[in-house]
């Protein structure tokens, strides 16, 4: 019989941190490229920003803010594990990572419509 392999929670935390980091790394050059359009004047930056008006791009932006929070709080957990007193895998911080990302995602949406 195939044994059931259960990944520990800390593996999920590792995956969340790595994938959010990868997503942010891919986004970074695009983000800088859009902002750098301002060097050619306000209208060029506005043109680049207007491209970000579509719903899909808005959703991607929302996702990036969520990823940034995931990576921030998940990273704080890693630093605590490595440099703080040993208290296991600090699963409370994994929960905090997910909750704060959700809150930031909500605040982003709220900020967008207000």
């Amino acid at each position, binding site marked *: 019989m195939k044994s059931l392999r259960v990944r520990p929670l800390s593996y999920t935390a590792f995956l969340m941190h*790595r994938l959010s980091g990868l997503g942010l790394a891919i986004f*970074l*050059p695009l983000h800088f490229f859009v902002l*750098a359009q301002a*060097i050619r004047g306000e209208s060029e930056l506005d043109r680049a920003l207007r491209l970000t008006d579509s719903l899909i791009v808005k959703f991607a932006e929302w996702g990036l803010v969520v990823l*940034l929070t995931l990576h921030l709080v998940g990273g704080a957990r890693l*630093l605590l594990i490595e440099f703080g007193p040993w208290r296991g895998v600090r699963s409370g911080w994994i929960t905090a990572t997910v909750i704060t990302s959700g809150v930031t995602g909500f605040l982003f949406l709220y*900020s*967008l419509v207000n």
Partner: protein
Amino acid sequence: MASTAIAQARAWYWQRISAMVLMVFVFIHLGLILYAMRGGLTAAEILGRTQGNLGLAVFYAVFVLACVIHVPLGLQKIAEEWGGMTPPTAQLLTRGFAALILVLGLTAVWAVTAP
């Protein structure tokens, strides 16, 4: 072998030091995004706040530099562990990426903060 171990240890601590710096910057950046996003963004709104703002220019220039250290080190690990690349290949690629975000990042900071 020893030089690989030293290189790995060095990459590890640069990754952690830059992470500590970035925590402060990302926290402030997230706050600024949520504040600035209200009701959407226009170029005039952004540039009105940023042009000639030396404090923001320094803040974001240091932010870019910390990213230039942190991001390629993370990508290098992914390229090695998931991409199956050898450390020298992964390092070459991620250093190219570092150069790209350094130039693009500092250009972006200059573009939005120059008076």
